[in-house]
């Protein structure tokens, strides 16, 4: 009885239950027979997921470390009043805020960028020679700080080596400094050792009295008494911040508003949220770009899955037809192929997450927490495992695999079982022109999306434009292949049988060619786009460096934001032997918005009548209205603050808001968060500050850089010698380009991986397509085509396909590069660049791709031809 074995059929449940067992048998059988295809497909997804997840893990943990460092310096204040510049604000603000209702505790703070070290040549308790580095010096009123930021209050250490028994009073001792564990490591010192600390151009020797138990492990901090900080480091009457604690239950908005009305122009109210936003905006564009780049690898992997699935479906057409004849519904067949893709995705995603975590660990060790971007300094990064993100990236991997399987699955469902069973291919008439409009439509949509503005400060429409252009390029491949090959077919020359067969096949089946090509085109175009962008950026940076470094020797005083070389020191330097002219520059960070990183004010000699002599201007400089103070803003400054030539703005300089006139825009690749150039004369008039932080020296005829540098060094104030760096333009240029290459190292690595995946795609696609044509080769051998002619035909096919892929990939890549250069980069990093195409690299790439395509086709052909011709013709599938 049929009923004993066969259940009553119910159309609603026709594709669930035991048909799933049949599907499982089919899938397992297929993978057992072709394990390499499963492995390559899963690996393609795994590499993409791994890169995306690794970049995410590193970014996230680096950001968390940076936040920890910021919290370390800030203690646990609920609110802060922060100075707009390192010069601080007048301390009279403190008693006024203290009198406000709702403020229960407040702590005045002097915060200085400092450099430090144990006195050179002095043996420390640890027995090592003096070492040092950059740190943040805080001056606190301990009795007040203990109520607002207790983590910044030092712990006197009893009995430490060098301790003299003054521990109980240590916080009030003028020589005492409390340091974080990171600072202790930096000094290579112990409790009781003496260290020298330089800030605001002043160097003082202090004794380590204890550690800051509450400070994070990664942040180098030193805390001294506030009165000593003000007195010893030239900050009398100035504060850089006031930390606040509000009463429980108080109307916080009202208190904030009340504080806001009291603030002078050189101070701003900052909340922890503002700080978080600031640290996020520091590196957001860089992080998003890296993640997008990682997604490129995943996308390329998706194309590889698409290729593999398309070929697999094409090869199994008769098998699928049999299943349809035996009673598998069309929908169930589509589901089976998509399920295969999904399983491929799950395997790849699981591998990718593990691989990604290991990769993140390796990347942090090799490149640091910011992957070479230079955003977070060199603080230690502790890797965490973000489970939700892991799930999300795994989901994206599975999603890409499923989407990549959809088209092949639909093709499998559409096939006519009767025709497929007879071995027919339902091939279209070769003369039918493949439609070009879907590709052109997508390309046009990409062009429109590229014109869109940034969304949430990110070039999301730019990325959409890239995706649409890529999709358009791939969709246009059958049409383009036909067009390109038609040109060759038309040429009336005597061709060998092999080349003629190859040409006719590719010309007559452009759809099949497109399946093989999509992986090449995707990876080539993305690689070309990135390479053009990076080359353009590098060339523009190099040209800019030449323009901004016209002098012979440069000096820079590090950590001198609060005060560098005074007038006397400037005069001594100007009088050094061998110096023809010396141009001084004052750099001062200005905090113009609570939630944005500081912009850099660059005060230097600028002739308002000819600013182009001092600045690499973009466009012309406007005439300055009478009585106005001109400034020139950098490109990022213009983007970030929405200012343009002709605008007026106010800068927190000196004791008030100084109105300035924006006369022009200049190119600056050094400061991503904006810079404002101002004439030294105007800066001094506004602030009364005559100190400088940099100098550019032109040598007198016959003078050499080495002796002049030595002479300049001898004339520096002793406290600033250790933190002053000298360099010649070629060194600065080499260093800048080294930093550039380091920050793009991860980009190069991701690019190389994307190309690698693309090449693997070429190899597997060609191999599968060639092996699937055994029957055709058998037939050709039957009618007298020689083995070497078939090999030659395959080589010609591979080379032609590779050539078409390279032409399409290069063209599409250069178009996509324009989106990167003119949309993504300006919207992410706020600077523009001139297009530069690395022809040499592309020539090499084109040759490698064509050779890889031809070589793979030949290798696969040899394998396919190893079966005897008779069997090949008789083979069913």
């Amino acid at each position, binding site marked *: *009885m*049929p009923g*004993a*074995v*066969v*259940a009553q*059929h*119910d*159309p609603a*449940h*026709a594709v669930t*239950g*035991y*048909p799933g*067992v*049949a599907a499982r*048998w*089919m899938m*397992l*059988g*297929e993978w*057992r*027979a072709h394990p390499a295809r499963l492995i390559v497909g899963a690996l393609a997804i795994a590499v993409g997921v791994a890169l995306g997840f690794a970049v995410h893990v590193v970014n996230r943990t680096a950001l968390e470390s940076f936040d920890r460092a910021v919290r370390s310096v800030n203690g646990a204040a609920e609110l802060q009043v922060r100075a707009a510049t390192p010069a601080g604000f007048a301390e009279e603000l403190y008693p006024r805020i203290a009198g406000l209702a709702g403020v229960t505790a407040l702590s005045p703070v002097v915060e200085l960028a400092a450099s430090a070290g144990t006195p050179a040549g002095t043996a420390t308790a640890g027995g090592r020679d003096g070492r040092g580095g950059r740190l943040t010096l805080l001056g606190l009123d301990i009795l007040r700080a203990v109520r607002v930021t207790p983590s910044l209050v030092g712990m006197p250490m009893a009995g430490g080596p060098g301790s003299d028994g003054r521990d109980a009073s240590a916080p009030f001792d003028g020589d005492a400094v409390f340091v974080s564990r990171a600072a202790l490591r930096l000094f290579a010192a112990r409790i009781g050792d003496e260290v020298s600390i330089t800030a605001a151009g002043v160097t003082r020797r202090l004794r380590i009295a204890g550690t800051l138990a509450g400070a994070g492990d990664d942040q180098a901090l030193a805390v001294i008494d506030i009165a000593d900080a003000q007195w010893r480091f030239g900050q009398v009457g100035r504060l850089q911040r006031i930390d606040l604690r509000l009463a429980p239950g108080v109307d916080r908005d009202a208190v904030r508003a009340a504080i806001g009305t009291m603030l002078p122009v050189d101070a701003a109210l900052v909340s922890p949220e503002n700080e978080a936003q600031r640290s996020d905006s520091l590196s957001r564009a860089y992080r998003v770009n890296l993640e997008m780049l990682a997604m490129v690898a995943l996308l390329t992997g998706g194309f590889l899955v698409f290729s593999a699935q398309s070929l697999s479906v094409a090869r199994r057409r*008769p*098998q699928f037809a*049999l*299943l*349809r*004849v*035996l*009673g*598998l*519904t*069309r*929908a169930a067949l589509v589901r089976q192929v998509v399920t295969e893709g999904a399983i491929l995705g799950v395997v790849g995603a699981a591998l990718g997450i593990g691989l990604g975590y290991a990769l993140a660990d390796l990347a942090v060790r090799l490149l640091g927490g910011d992957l070479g971007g230079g955003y977070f300094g060199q603080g230690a990064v502790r890797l965490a495992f973000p489970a939700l993100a892991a799930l999300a990236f795994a989901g994206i991997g599975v999603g890409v695999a499923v989407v990549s399987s959809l088209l092949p699955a639909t093709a499998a469902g559409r096939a*006519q*079982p*009767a025709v497929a*069973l*007879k*071995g027919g291919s339902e091939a279209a008439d070769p003369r039918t022109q493949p439609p070009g409009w879907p590709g052109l439509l997508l390309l046009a949509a990409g062009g429109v999306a590229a014109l869109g503005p940034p969304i949430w400060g990110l070039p999301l429409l730019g990325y959409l434009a890239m995706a649409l252009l890529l999709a358009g390029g791939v969709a246009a491949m059958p049409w383009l292949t036909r067009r390109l090959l038609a040109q060759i077919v038309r040429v009336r020359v005597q061709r060998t049988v092999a080349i003629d067969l190859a040409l006719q096949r590719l010309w007559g089946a452009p759809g099949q060619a497109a399946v093989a090509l999509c992986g090449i085109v995707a990876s080539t175009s993305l690689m070309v786009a990135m390479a053009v962008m990076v080359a353009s950026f590098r060339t523009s940076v190099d040209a800019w460096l030449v323009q901004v470094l016209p002098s012979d020797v440069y000096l820079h005083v590090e950590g001198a934001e609060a005060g560098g070389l005074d007038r006397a020191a400037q005069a001594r330097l100007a009088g050094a032997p061998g110096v023809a002219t010396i141009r001084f520059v004052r750099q001062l960070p200005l905090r113009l918005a609570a939630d944005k990183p500081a912009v850099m004010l660059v005060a230097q000699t600028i002739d308002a009548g000819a600013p182009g002599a001092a600045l690499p201007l973009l466009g012309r400089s406007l005439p300055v209205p009478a009585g106005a103070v001109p400034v020139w803003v950098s490109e990022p400054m213009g983007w970030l603050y929405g200012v343009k030539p002709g605008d007026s703005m106010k800068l927190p300089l000196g004791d008030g808001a100084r109105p300035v006139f924006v006369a022009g825009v200049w190119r600056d690749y050094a400061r991503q968060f904006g810079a404002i150039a101002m004439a030294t004369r105007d800066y001094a008039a506004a602030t009364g500050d005559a100190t400088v932080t940099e100098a550019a020296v032109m040598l007198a005829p016959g003078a050499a850089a080495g002796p002049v540098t030595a002479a300049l060094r001898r004339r520096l104030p002793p406290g600033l010698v250790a933190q002053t760096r000298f360099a010649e333009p070629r060194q600065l240029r080499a260093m800048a380009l080294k930093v550039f290459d380091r920050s793009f190292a991860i980009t190069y690595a991701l690019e190389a991986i994307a190309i690698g995946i693309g090449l693997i795609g070429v190899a597997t696609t060609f191999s599968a397509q060639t092996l699937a044509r055994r029957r055709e080769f058998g037939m050709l051998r039957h009618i007298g085509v020689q083995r070497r002619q078939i090999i030659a035909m395959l080589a010609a096919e591979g080379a032609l396909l590779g050539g078409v892929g390279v032409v399409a990939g290069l063209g599409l890549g250069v178009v996509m590069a324009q989106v990167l250069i003119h949309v993504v980069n300006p919207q992410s990093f706020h600077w523009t660049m001139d297009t530069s195409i690395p022809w040499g690299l592309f020539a090499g790439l084109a040759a490698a791709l064509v050779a890889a395509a031809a070589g793979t086709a030949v290798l696969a052909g040899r394998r396919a031809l190893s079966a005897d011709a008779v069997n090949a013709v008789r083979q*069913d*599938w």
Partner: protein
Amino acid sequence: MSVPTPPAPALAVNGLGKSVPGGRRLFDGLDLVVAPGEIVAIMGESGVGKSTLLNLVAGLDSADAGSIAIAGRDLAGLDDDVRTLLRRDSIGFVFQAFHVLPHLTLAQNIALPLLLARAAPGPALVRADAMLAAVGLAGRGGDYPAQLSGGELQRIAIARALVHRPALILADEPTGNLDPETAARILALLLEQVRASGAAAVIVTHSDRAAAIADRVLVLGAAGLVPRGDALPRAAE
């Protein structure tokens, strides 16, 4: 006293018409009734539409005119999914090229129609083993098709066609790829198994030997389906 209703024919084709792309008329007004348990052989020259007729009967192709009913169920108006399910439950296929899936074991190949019809895998494999024994390949359920000869592959195909006890077997040149001796053995096996299952069968063939196992032999030609003795050679037409 009610008169028992006679069983519906395994296959009823009425007034069937079909053209091929390009407009050439393959046949018109074709009629055929196959009773339950009856074996009908259809012969005819290449290109007259024998395989097309089988495809139409299987619901794999659509007719221009006429109707087809399988075990009393009219195919007209059924969508692709329902026709697929009807094919799954009521029809078994034997092909010239065997079409045995290379990555499945012999038992899995035979059990496939049962699984597609929602049978549990355990009983399905037990039944597949029984069918293997019936076609003379007992104990080889774990082998793969690559280990089999052409004749053995066709035995597997016959076992697969009958495993789910369909009402109708459609066989398209079942011995076309076999040598005469093997073909004879396969035909005997096919006859034996079809008779044992009680199914009806339509066999499309060029082979007189294959046609000899049928209860009726029809020739498809310009005049439609006619008994072999009545068919005119094409030259006379």
